[in-house]
């Protein structure tokens, strides 16, 4: 191929891109290894595997920089208070606090290369991609406002969640097996709360999002764990009585077993 037809092709593709919606060209398929994660008494965390493929049709055009995948996993929502300690009368007390409404209990942003290499900051912000851009609405007394991404309470909250492995951004979390086939592993630490988790897979090419595929999964307690949690929540008094009786029985049993006189 000489340079002249190549140039013509690029010009033609450019014209095509100007008229055709780019999202129609590729289809994204994603599937999880498991859609229901059971929390049982030997649960110490789990790793889910997400497989995905990029299907091209006749309208697909070659991508200059190849494909990029960003997977965002968002856990169930919680209302969380972030406290800041300050020294009052010589001791450190929780002096200031912010309530964060609907904060995801778990966030994992996995991609095949750093987010800022995939697309520009503006797009990341618009698509709410990455830990810097996830929406964390703070309730400051009356009005709810999205705090600036450098707000100290917001940063501290993300830092604490990251230390627990509940918030993470992994820039090599997605691996391309072939140019059109990828896998990502979603690490779920033992502390993950139960609930519905959204997995949002986004396909990028040349810095623009061209396809998107959701794939939710659920984390739930089962068996003994589920029974205990439900009992504690729904029948608090009975549960407490049972625990107290158990304490008395254990104490009595011990005094019988170890009786010497």
């Amino acid at each position, binding site marked *: 191929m000489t340079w002249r037809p190549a140039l013509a092709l690029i010009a033609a593709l450019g014209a095509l891109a100007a008229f055709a919606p780019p999202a129609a060209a590729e289809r994204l398929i994603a599937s999880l290894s498991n859609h229901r994660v059971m929390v049982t008494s030997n649960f110490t965390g789990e790793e889910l595997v997400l497989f995905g493929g990029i299907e091209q049709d006749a309208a697909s055009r070659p991508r200059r920089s190849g494909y990029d995948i960003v997977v965002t996993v968002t856990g169930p929502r919680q209302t969380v208070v*972030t*406290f800041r300690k300050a020294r009052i009368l010589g001791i450190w007390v929780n002096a200031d606090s912010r309530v964060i409404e609907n904060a995801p209990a778990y966030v994992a942003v996995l991609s095949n290369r750093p987010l800022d290499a995939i697309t520009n900051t503006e797009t990341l912000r618009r698509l709410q991609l990455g830990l810097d851009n996830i929406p964390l609405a703070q309730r400051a007394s009356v009005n709810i406002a999205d705090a600036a991404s450098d707000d100290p309470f917001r940063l501290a*909250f993300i830092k*604490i*969640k990251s230390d627990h492995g509940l918030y993470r951004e992994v820039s090599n979390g997605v691996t391309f097996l072939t140019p059109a086939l990828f896998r990502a592993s979603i690490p779920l630490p033992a502390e993950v709360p139960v609930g519905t988790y959204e997995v949002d897979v986004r396909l990028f090419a040349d810095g623009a999002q061209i396809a998107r595929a959701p794939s939710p999964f659920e984390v739930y307690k089962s068996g003994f764990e589920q029974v205990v949690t439900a009992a504690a929540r729904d029948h608090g008094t009975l*549960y407490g009585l049972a625990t107290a009786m158990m*304490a008395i029985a254990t104490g009595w049993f011990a005094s019988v077993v170890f009786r010497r006189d």
Partner: protein
Amino acid sequence: MQIYLPIADLPVNVFVILAMGLAVGFISGMFGIGGGFLMTPLLIFLGISPAVAVATVASHIAASSMSGAINYWRRRAIDLALVFMLLAGGIIGTAFGVWLFTTLRAIGQLDITIGVSYVLLLGIVGALMVTESVRAILRARQGKPVELRRPGSHTWIHGLPFKLRFKRSRIYVSAIPVWGIGFLIGFVGAVMGIGGGFLLVPMLIYVLRVPTGTVIGTSMVLTLVTMASATVMHAATNHLVDALLAVFLMVGGVTGAQFGARAGQKMSSERLRLLLGLLVLAVGLRFALDLVVAPENLYSIRILDPNT
């Protein structure tokens, strides 16, 4: 072996929990106390939230005081009449304590309240016990007889009305200080996750002048009832009692307590009081350090309500 705790929502090593139960049980058996002031901080250190720790430790203390109380019951070393009068105050104190616990948790000042209370309580009680026992040991060294009870010495407490006679303890005191002590122990126990044995025993001895023969047995029965009811109240209001965690703590605790009790019998009571005083003081200082030293992370988070 890791096991996932259903209420605390995290996995723990079963052997670590059992070992902690054994160690604290040993100490509690040795000194005749519940050991909550040691267990609660240990659980918090493991990563269990203070609220779950306080609520769960209540059931653990109930178990260890039950096993101790039975031993004292066999020796007829329990003053039930005194227990009932203390309980009258104790139940109200526990209910008030659980209420305060819930309120403080809601406004985010629970941890600091637990911290400050530990420092004040453990610091004062520890210091008093250490000085008193050192004095007693010195007196014994100099060959002076140990003063257990001075029959003629009456304080203002003996001048209060509503006097009652407690036959087994051979004391004749007003009901007001008895109720007051009961209330205080129940209250402190519910807020701080401690049985209050280390508080109750000295108060019974020095304020009510209960003879040493009945004091520990009586304290254990009171602790048993207040902690069992604190378990029920915490479970009913805050849903924070982790029964699985409680089982492991109890099994370790009651076993350790038996060995501790045997070790304790080999020591003189002054030396035991000195050791306990030093232990109490050390835990108090550890909490004081947490309060005054600049924390590594100024921020902390707490989940208000999962929107499920």
